[in-house]
C-alpha cells in the first residue's frame, strides 16, 4: 500500500509529463476516429477514452496538489482546465472536413500544452522555497533547474503547434505529426530532469527518434527526406559514441547516478585510469555536442534545418537545442568538479565555443536561403553559450575536498540566454514561415521590397534580428551581456573579445535580411499572393513585444533564471 501511495505521489511531481503523454494518446485516438469517419462505435470509444482522460487529469490535479503539499492547491483549477480540455477534444470530434483535419489535432495539443504548462508553473512556484526539489522514482530530479527547461519546452511546443497549424506545406498525417512532436517534447522533459545515465539516454533517444521522423515528415519533398537521412545517420553515430562514453563513465565512476559519478571521478585525474576516464568524457561530451550542433559536430545542422519543414526546424533550433544544453551543463558540472579535470573540460568547451561562433558566422555570411542562414546563426549562438559553459565554474577556487562548485551566476547567464534565444528564434523562424509563404520562396533574393507589403511581420522580424545580433534594448542584448560578463569573470577574456568581434560580423548577415526586406521600394517586389492567417502575425507580434519587454526590464526573466540556476 505504501508503495502505491509513494507511486502516486511521485506521479504528482511529473504532472506536466503525464499531461503531455495523455495528450499524445488523445491526439492519436482522435486521429484514428477521424480516419474512419463514419463508424459510430469508434466515436463512442473516442468519447469514452477522452472522458477518461479528463477524469484522469482532474485526478492528477488532486495527486499533484497532494504531492506539493501546502504551497498551491490546484485541485479546482486543474479540474476546470481538464474539463476545457475534454470539451475541446470532444467538440472537435463533431467537425468534419479537410480544414478541421488540420485544426483539430493542433487544438488538442494546444489545450494539453496549456494544461501541462499550468502544472509546470505550479511546480515552479512550489519549488521557489526549495530549488533543489526532490528526486522521484529514484531517477528523476524535479528541481527548479529542470522545471525551467520544462517551461521552455512547453512554450516552444505551444508556439510550434501554432506555427504548424498555419503551415500549409504540411498536407497530411497531422495526427502522426503531432504525436511525434509531443513525443519529442516529452523526451525533452525527461531528459532535462534526469540525473541518471539511463534516463539521459532514454530521454535523448525519445527526443532524437521523434526528431528524425519529424525532419522527414514532408514525404513528397526530397529535401525533407534528405534532411531526415542526414539527421538520422549523424544522430545515430553521435548517440552510439555518447553511449560508449557512458559505459566507460559508468564503469570507472562506479555508478549510474551523475552526482555519485562526479564524486568518484573527482580524484582520478592523476590515477592510472585517467586515459580511460578521459576517453569516456570525450565520447560523452562529443556525442552530446551533436545535439546542440557545436563545431565540430555541426555537419548535419545547415542541411537539416534547411530541408526539414520549417516548424520542425524551429523546434530543432529552439527546444531540442535548449534540452541539449540542459544536459550538457549538468554533465559538465559533474565532470568538471575534479581538480585535474576542470581545466581539461573547460578548455574543451572553450575551444568548441571559439570554433562554433567563428564557423557559424563565417558560414552565414554568404547564405541566401534564410533558413540556412538562421541555421548557421544558431551554430554561432551555440558558440556564445558555450563560452559561459566554459566559464561555468567562474573564477574557480576549490571548495572542501578539493572539488569545484558551479558558479550560480554563470549558470544563470546560460539559463537566461537560452530563454532569450528561444524567444528570438521562435520569432525569427515564425516570421520566416510567414514571409516565405507570402513570397513563395525561402530565398532572400525573392524577398526584395517585401517589407513594405508585410510591414508588421517584417518589422518584428527586424526586432528579432536586432536581438540576435545583440543590440539593445532587446532580450538578446541583455543575454549576451550576461554571457560576456560570465566569460570575463571566469577568466576567458579572449573568448569574450572573440565573441565581440563575431558580433560585429554577425550584424552583416542579419541585416542583409533587413536590407532585402526594406531597402527596395514595394513596387519592385514580387507580389504577395498568399497571406497566412492573422493569428500567426499576432503570435509574432507578441513574441516581438516579449523581446523588447525583457530587453528593457530583464529582471523578470533574470530572477526566474537565477532561481532555477540555484538548483544546480
Amino acid at each position: 500500500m505504501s508503495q502505491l501511495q509513494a507511486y502516486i505521489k511521485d506521479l504528482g511531481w511529473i504532472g506536466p509529463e503525464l499531461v503531455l503523454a495523455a495528450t499524445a494518446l488523445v491526439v492519436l485516438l482522435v486521429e484514428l476516429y477521424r480516419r474512419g469517419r463514419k463508424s459510430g462505435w469508434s466515436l463512442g470509444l473516442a468519447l469514452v477514452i477522452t472522458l477518461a482522460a479528463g477524469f484522469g487529469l482532474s485526478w492528477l490535479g488532486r495527486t499533484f496538489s497532494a504531492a506539493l503539499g501546502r504551497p498551491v492547491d490546484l485541485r479546482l483549477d486543474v479540474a476546470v482546465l481538464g474539463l476545457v480540455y475534454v470539451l475541446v477534444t470532444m467538440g472537435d470530434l463533431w467537425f468534419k472536413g479537410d480544414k478541421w483535419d488540420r485544426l483539430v489535432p493542433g487544438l488538442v495539443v494546444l489545450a494539453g500544452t496549456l494544461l501541462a504548462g499550468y502544472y509546470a508553473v505550479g511546480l515552479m512556484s512550489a519549488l521557489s522555497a526549495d530549488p533543489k526539489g526532490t528526486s522521484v522514482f529514484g531517477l528523476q530530479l524535479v528541481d527548479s533547474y529542470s522545471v525551467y527547461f520544462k517551461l521552455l519546452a512547453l512554450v516552444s511546443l505551444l508556439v510550434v503547434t501554432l506555427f504548424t497549424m498555419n503551415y500549409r506545406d504540411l498536407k497530411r498525417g497531422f495526427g502522426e505529426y503531432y504525436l511525434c512532436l509531443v513525443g519529442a517534447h516529452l523526451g525533452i522533459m525527461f531528459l532535462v530532469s534526469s540525473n541518471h545515465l539511463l534516463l539521459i539516454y532514454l530521454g535523448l533517444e525519445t527526443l532524437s527518434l521523434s526528431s528524425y521522423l519529424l525532419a522527414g515528415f514532408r514525404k513528397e519533398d526530397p529535401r525533407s527526406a534528405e534532411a531526415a537521412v542526414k539527421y538520422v545517420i549523424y544522430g545515430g553515430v553521435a548517440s552510439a559514441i555518447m553511449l560508449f562514453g557512458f559505459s566507460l563513465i559508468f564503469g570507472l565512476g562506479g555508478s549510474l547516478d551523475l552526482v555519485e559519478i562526479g564524486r568518484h571521478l573527482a580524484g582520478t585525474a592523476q590515477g592510472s585510469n585517467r586515459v580511460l576516464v578521459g576517453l569516456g568524457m570525450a565520447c560523452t561530451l562529443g556525442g552530446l555536442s551533436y545535439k546542440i550542433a557545436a563545431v565540430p559536430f555541426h555537419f548535419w545542422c545547415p542541411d537539416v534545418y534547411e530541408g526539414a519543414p520549417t516548424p520542425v526546424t524551429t523546434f530543432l533550433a529552439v527546444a531540442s537545442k535548449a534540452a541539449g544544453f540542459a544536459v550538457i551543463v549538468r554533465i559538465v558540472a559533474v565532470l568538471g568538479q575534479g581538480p585535474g579535470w576542470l581545466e581539461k573540460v573547460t578548455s574543451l568547451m572553450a575551444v568548441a565555443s571559439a570554433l562554433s561562433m567563428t564557423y557559424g558566422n563565417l558560414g552565414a555570411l554568404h547564405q541566401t536561403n534564410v533558413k540556412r542562414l538562421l541555421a548557421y546563426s544558431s551554430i554561432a549562438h551555440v558558440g556564445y553559450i558555450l563560452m559561459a559553459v566554459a566559464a561555468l565554474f567562474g573564477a574557480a577556487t576549490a571548495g572542501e575536498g578539493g572539488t569545484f562548485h558551479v558558479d550560480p551566476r554563470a549558470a544563470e547567464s546560460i539559463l537566461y540566454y537560452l530563454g532569450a534565444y528561444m524567444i528570438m528564434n521562435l520569432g525569427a523562424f515564425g516570421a520566416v514561415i510567414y514571409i516565405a509563404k507570402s513570397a513563395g520562396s525561402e530565398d532572400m533574393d525573392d524577398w526584395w521590397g517585401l517589407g513594405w507589403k508585410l510591414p508588421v511581420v517584417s518589422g518584428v522580424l527586424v526586432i528579432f534580428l536586432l536581438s540576435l545580433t545583440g543590440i539593445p534594448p532587446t532580450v538578446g542584448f541583455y543575454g549576451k551581456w550576461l554571457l560576456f560578463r560570465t566569460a570575463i569573470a571566469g577568466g576567458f577574456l579572449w573568448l569574450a573579445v572573440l565573441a565581440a568581434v563575431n558580433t560585429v560580423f554577425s550584424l552583416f548577415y542579419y541585416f542583409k535580411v533587413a536590407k532585402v526586406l526594406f531597402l527596395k521600394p514595394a513596387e519592385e517586389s514580387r507580389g504577395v499572393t498568399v497571406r497566412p492567417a492573422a493569428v500567426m502575425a499576432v503570435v509574432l507580434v507578441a513574441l516581438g513585444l516579449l523581446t523588447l519587454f525583457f530587453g528593457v526590464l530583464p529582471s523578470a526573466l533574470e530572477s526566474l533564471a537565477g532561481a532555477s540556476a540555484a538548483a544546480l
Partner: protein
Amino acid sequence: MTVPLVWYVFLALILFTIGLVVIVSRHNLIYTLMGVELILNGANINFIAFARALGGKYPIAGNIFSIFVIVLAAAEAAVALAIVLHVFGHFGSVRPEDPNMLRE
C-alpha cells in the same frame, strides 16, 4: 580464475574502433548503421562487464541498461531504415553524398 575485467574492456574497445572505422571508411548509409550497431555492442559489453565487477545493485542495473540499449537500437534501426528506403525512393542511391539538393 576468471577472465580479468580488462579483457572485456579491451574487447569493447576493439568493437568500438572497428565500428568507427566502418562508419568513416564505408560510404554507404547501411554500412554506417552497421558501424553504429558495433559501437553499441561494445558499449553493452562494457556495461555488463563493469556491472559484474562493481557488484551490489549494479548487476541488475547493467543488465537493464543493456536491454534498453538493445531495444532502442532496434527502434533506431527501424526508423533509420524507413528513412533510408524513403530517401532511396527519391534519390536512387544509398550513399550519403548522393542526396545533395541542399546546398553546401
